[in-house]
């Protein structure tokens, strides 16, 4: 087996991948020839009906990765296969057609809705773009969808976004995202702007809709507890690289990457019995993605770093079935 083949096998999602991302790179050119290395060759797979949680802190490239999956814009290099279709090869009308199959919801629910339009037209817009049904048929679909996301359609249809709370606006965004019955829903920090009581409503709603529509979810968040709640598997990113992927239980019980452990220990737990432990990370700042560290990108903050970490980029390798880590000296 070649190294590449072994890596592929180790990455394989349990039940065959529906979304298969290979060696994806996203770079943003800067003036003077430099570039931002936002995503530097990540691979991950998501099985049909599965939720993959993508976690990491600001600047780790999780939103760039999500947008590149959706070809918004296309990644600098790498492959993104959804079902049988290689999305990076699609152009023009073919890409437009494929777009029906994947939708996205964003962090700021209010800003992502056009303030001047009525809710019924906001939610109907995707149907209109693909030219589906007449007006009456479209509004009927909208009303059904609003009911499904827990809004009173009779009251909501004619109103405008400012008349709704943040949580309600996120329900409207979800209705709009699901109206074309996509296969894949990408959620980029969908509850980060919401209060906890409302956050719980939206998380429960996403779980319900996932089952009802057989959705595959890519769920991005900086909040580990939120990610654990909705995910079957979890992938941790740091500065454009994948650190660790595992099923949602194992990654929390037995983190193998030092950065995963740091993230877990920093997460504030609502339990007065657990005093916060000192942070398992060297003091300093997040390195710039324009000029990332050689070798392992976490090495400037990693308490376990050794000479090899600067010389050699750690490759993803399998620790246990479904559990892979990119570290020369994994924990345990």
């Amino acid at each position, binding site marked *: 087996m070649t190294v590449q083949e072994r890596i592929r096998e180790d990455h394989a999602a349990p039940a065959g991948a529906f979304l298969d991302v290979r060696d994806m790179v996203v770079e943003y050119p800067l003036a003077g020839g430099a570039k931002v290395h936002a995503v530097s060759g990540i691979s991950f797979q998501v099985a049909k009906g599965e939720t993959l949680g993508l976690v990491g*802190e*600001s600047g780790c490239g999780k939103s760039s990765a999500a947008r590149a999956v959706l070809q918004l814009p296309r990644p600098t290099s790498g492959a993104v296969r959804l079902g049988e279709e290689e999305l990076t090869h699609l152009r023009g009308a073919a890409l437009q057609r494929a777009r029906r199959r994947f939708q996205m919801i964003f962090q700021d629910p209010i800003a992502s809705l056009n303030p001047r339009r009525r809710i019924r037209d906001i939610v109907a817009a995707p149907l209109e773009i693909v030219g589906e049904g007449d007006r009456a048929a479209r509004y009927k679909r909208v009303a059904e969808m609003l009911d499904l996301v827990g809004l009173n359609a009779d009251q909501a249809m004619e109103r405008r976004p400012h008349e709704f*709370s943040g*949580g309600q606006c996120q329900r409207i965004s979800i209705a709009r995202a699901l109206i074309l019955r996509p296969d894949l829903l990408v959620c980029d920090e969908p509850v980060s702007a919401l*209060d*906890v*009581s*409302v*956050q*719980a*409503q939206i*998380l*429960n709603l996403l*779980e319900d809709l996932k089952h009802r529509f057989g959705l595959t979810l890519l769920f991005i968040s*900086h*909040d*580990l*507890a*939120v990610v*654990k*709640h*909705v*995910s*079957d598997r979890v992938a941790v990113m740091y500065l454009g690289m994948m650190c660790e992927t595992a099923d*949602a*239980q194992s990654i*929390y019980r037995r983190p193998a990457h030092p950065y995963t452990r*740091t*993230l*877990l*220990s*920093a*997460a*504030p*737990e*609502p*339990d*007065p019995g*657990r*005093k*916060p432990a*000192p*942070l398992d*990370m060297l*003091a*300093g*700042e*997040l390195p710039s993605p324009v000029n990332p560290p050689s070798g392992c990108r976490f090495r400037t903050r990693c308490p376990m770093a050794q000479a090899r970490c600067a010389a050699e980029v750690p490759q993803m390798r399998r620790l246990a079935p479904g559990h892979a880590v990119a570290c020369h000296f994994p924990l345990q």
Partner: protein
Amino acid sequence: MSEPLLTVENQRTAFATGRGLVRAVDGVSFTLERGRTLGVVGESGSGKSVLSRSIMRLLPPNARSSGEVRLGGRDLTAMSEKALRALRGPEISIVFQDPMTSLNPVMTIGAQIGEVLTRHLGMSRKAAKARSVELLASVGLPQPDVRVDQHPHQLSGGMRQRVAIAIAIACEPALLIADEPTTALDVTVQAEILDLLARQQAERNMAMILITHDMGVVAGRCDDVAVMYAGRIVEQASTEDLFRDTRMPYTSALLASIPRLDDPPHRKLEAIAGRPPDLIHPPAGCAFSPRCRYADDLCRSQPPALEDAGRGHRFACWRPMTMEAAE
């Protein structure tokens, strides 16, 4: 017994708006001793920031404020703006969620800390500069001797918050109010900043009010916690009691709605239906009654008072929960 460091007595703060009077803080009373940390938690709009600005006496012109705020025996509500300015820094100071609220974008960091030191402590410019570098080092800013000559935009968000903290503690205040100091920051940076605040507090025996919407943040870091809902404190207790012997249904519902790291994946969360009340037309009785599963006619018609049930555990509820009900 000597007087507590801070006494807030029936503070009410309302804003005149086009839609009517917004009762943002609606009768808040509490005390805080030297060296202690009080966590104030609540959801967006519950009045946490207006309360902190009411204590600081930093209110906008459309605010109507009543009540009493005593700090070290002095009534801040009766003081002139000039007298208050002399107090802000050496006696009481505040750190905001967005550090740029208190930083000046066109001044170097050293000049900003130096200004506070020369104004309040009468230091010479040279001494102030040296002290600024020390302060920046004490808040964990890397390369303090270089950073001192930089401007805020040259720093990351976490570093700016460290600078804002350095300014806030420069004159060793007796009370520091930290209003969501880490909400905009990454979890690892949050942990560092909260550690930093705890260290500074212990070294200086400073009292702190830590305002946050995150129950996780208060759990590990506060002596006592007050929960706010619709402009009032609805429950307050030692941190241990608040989490283990929760009496007020809103606190309990809030705790149940939080996703926890040790939950199994896909556990259904206990969401609180509905949303917080409109502060212009709050419900007649208990403000939580439209969302409370225990609400009865009394709850809907009369607001419950905040009463002390012993050991400093206060709650405002007609039908407080017992341990069994919370199970």
